[in-house]
């Protein structure tokens, strides 16, 4: 065990002295949480501001005083649409829908002919599309008011046209709503852990082989498992360090939330931090071993980088299985590394139940994967020195 400890200390010191790589990894992992939260909160705050703004851009509303009166009574602010708004909407340079009122609106309305309004938007312009719904609802309100007045003039109760009432209730709760926005967070945290361990995994295996320092190491009286254990310990420590920093980064990151609604919904305290780490640390250990097992087969650092791209790609694609598959969370998701971690972190953010079995199953899978990969690295190590 003394030999494994010496190898661990040396590899860790070596990795920590690689200042440039370390700086990039630390910056990206420490800044990851706050940056993601700020970006999401800016996005959500913008949507909230638009929903509350009640601003309408129109063409020809001056010729429709009845409609203008209704809009003013609903406390909407009306602005004339800018020149060339159609092109600007398509090019996403103007992000509000535009209501075009025909010149004969008032006359048609008086004659009982339904005037045809035009609501301009673009499906490629997400923000304009988002606001188009509320403008349509506004016009629907005008429609109902006018219809109600006409029925009342004829002595018919407006309720005669209303045969049913619809009430909407969101069963997801506030935290589930926040999780919609936060769906990306677990994925980014996991990728940060993977990248945190990647460089050290390559350097301790293919890097050692390329610079010719693996052969002298194998000629010391240390058993292979001690060498592998020490190297893996250092690589896993790098990944785990990034996991701790990235997860802890969400705590101060919350203070930067600009959206009040999002801040109220995103509940991330010490309990959530603990659960994130319980999920991530075994995964960091398994990913470290997996990266080493792939890299030890390569003759050079560059070749190993190409080899480990497959691992990175696999880790990026696995969480997408749920999107392709549909049907929500399945029991087998917890058996697949990466997907299990993303699923569980997602559940933590949504405030869902997390049992001991849910936590233990991915730990057991990670432990088995780690053991298998380390045994493979030990088997490959001797041949790798002179091949």
């Amino acid at each position, binding site marked *: 065990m*003394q030999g494994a400890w010496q190898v661990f200390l040396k590899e860790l*010191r070596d990795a920590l002295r690689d200042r440039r790589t370390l700086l990039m990894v630390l910056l990206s992992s420490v800044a990851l949480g706050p940056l993601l939260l700020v970006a999401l909160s800016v996005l959500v705050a913008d949507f909230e501001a638009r929903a509350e703004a009640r601003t309408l851009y129109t063409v020809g509303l001056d010729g429709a005083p009845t409609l203008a009166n209704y809009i003013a009574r609903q406390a909407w602010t009306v602005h004339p649409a800018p020149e060339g708004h159609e092109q600007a909407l398509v090019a996403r340079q103007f992000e509000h829908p535009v209501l075009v009122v025909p010149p004969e609106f008032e006359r048609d309305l008086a004659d009982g002919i339904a005037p045809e309004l035009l609501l301009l938007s673009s499906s490629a312009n997400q923000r304009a599309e988002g606001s188009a719904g509320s403008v349509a609802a506004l016009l629907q309100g005008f429609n109902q008011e006018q219809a109600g007045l006409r029925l009342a003039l004829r002595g018919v109760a407006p309720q005669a046209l209303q045969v049913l009432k619809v009430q909407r209730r969101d069963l997801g709760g506030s935290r589930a709503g926040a999780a919609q926005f936060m769906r990306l967070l677990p994925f980014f945290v996991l990728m940060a852990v993977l990248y945190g361990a990647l460089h050290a995994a390559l350097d301790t295996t293919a890097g050692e082989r390329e610079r*010719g320092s693996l052969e*002298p190491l194998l*000629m010391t*009286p240390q058993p292979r498992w001690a060498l592998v254990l020490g190297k893996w310990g250092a690589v896993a420590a790098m990944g785990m360090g990034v996991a701790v920093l990235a997860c802890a980064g969400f705590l101060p990151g919350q203070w930067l939330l600009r959206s009040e609604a999002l801040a109220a919904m995103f509940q991330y305290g010490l309990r959530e931090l603990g659960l994130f780490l319980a999920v991530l640390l075994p995964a960091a250990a398994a990913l470290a071993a997996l990266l080493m097992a792939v890299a030890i087969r390569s003759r050079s650092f560059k070749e190993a980088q190409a080899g480990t791209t497959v691992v990175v790609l696999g880790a990026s694609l696995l969480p997408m299985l749920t999107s392709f598959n549909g049907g929500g969370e399945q029991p087998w998701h917890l058996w697949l590394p990466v997907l299990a971690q993303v699923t569980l972190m997602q559940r933590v953010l949504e405030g869902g139940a997390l049992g001991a079995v849910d936590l233990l199953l991915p730990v057991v899978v990670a432990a088995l994967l780690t053991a298998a990969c380390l045994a493979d690295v030990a088997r490959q190590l001797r041949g790798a020195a002179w091949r």
Partner: protein
Amino acid sequence: MITVEGLAKQFSQGSGRQRRVVPAVQAVDFTARDACITGLLGPNGAGKTTTLRMIAGLLRPDAGRITVGGIDVALKPQAVQARLGVLSDARGLSPRLTARENIVYYGRLHGLDRDRAEARAEALAGVLEMAPLLDRRTEGFSQGERMKTALARALVHDPSHIVLDEPTNGLDVLATRSLRAALRRLRDEAGKCIVFSSHIMQEVERLCDHVVVVAGGRTVADGSVPALLAQTGQDDFEACFVQLAFGPTAVGGAA
């Protein structure tokens, strides 16, 4: 003492129909005594490096037996590795560690405590004339500086047996002379058993007490330099080596 008896090793290259077997070592035998520098002399591809890797326990021989200090390498490889100091063909260092840290790391892996490993690093730096290098990171070291650090790393645990694979490759004349002096001191003052592989005649002639000529994976002759000269009837050691390694007809070739 190191004894090598009937050593053989072959490698397979390629796969499927392209697969072919390459015999690297076919019949190498020699004995390297204590307090003696034994030279393993042979042309490129003669099987010297493979033989040394088998002595160091890195490769398992297909046939034959190797003992180091009376211990069978096949039976107790780790006990042999604890007694061996090997400067192999691959002499890479950790570039972000200082020379001292590189040497002490190997001392610790050989079971030395920190103080003892530090003391050995200092002592070897004196012997190998590399004291000013000790606290510099090894990235950017010259070939000679790298070789000295790798040699100090191989000797940090004060091994009774030393195996050096073409140690003067890439060294300038001063560094080569310094290395030769260091090896003589290790032989004369500490009574080490030193095995030294090379394909440079002058180096073997000047340094080795006993020479083993290897060609085509086989031991073709062994003895002291004067004995080998007498055996071939040559005055020049280079001509002697060419005759032993490639046959009498090759001696008359381009000189």
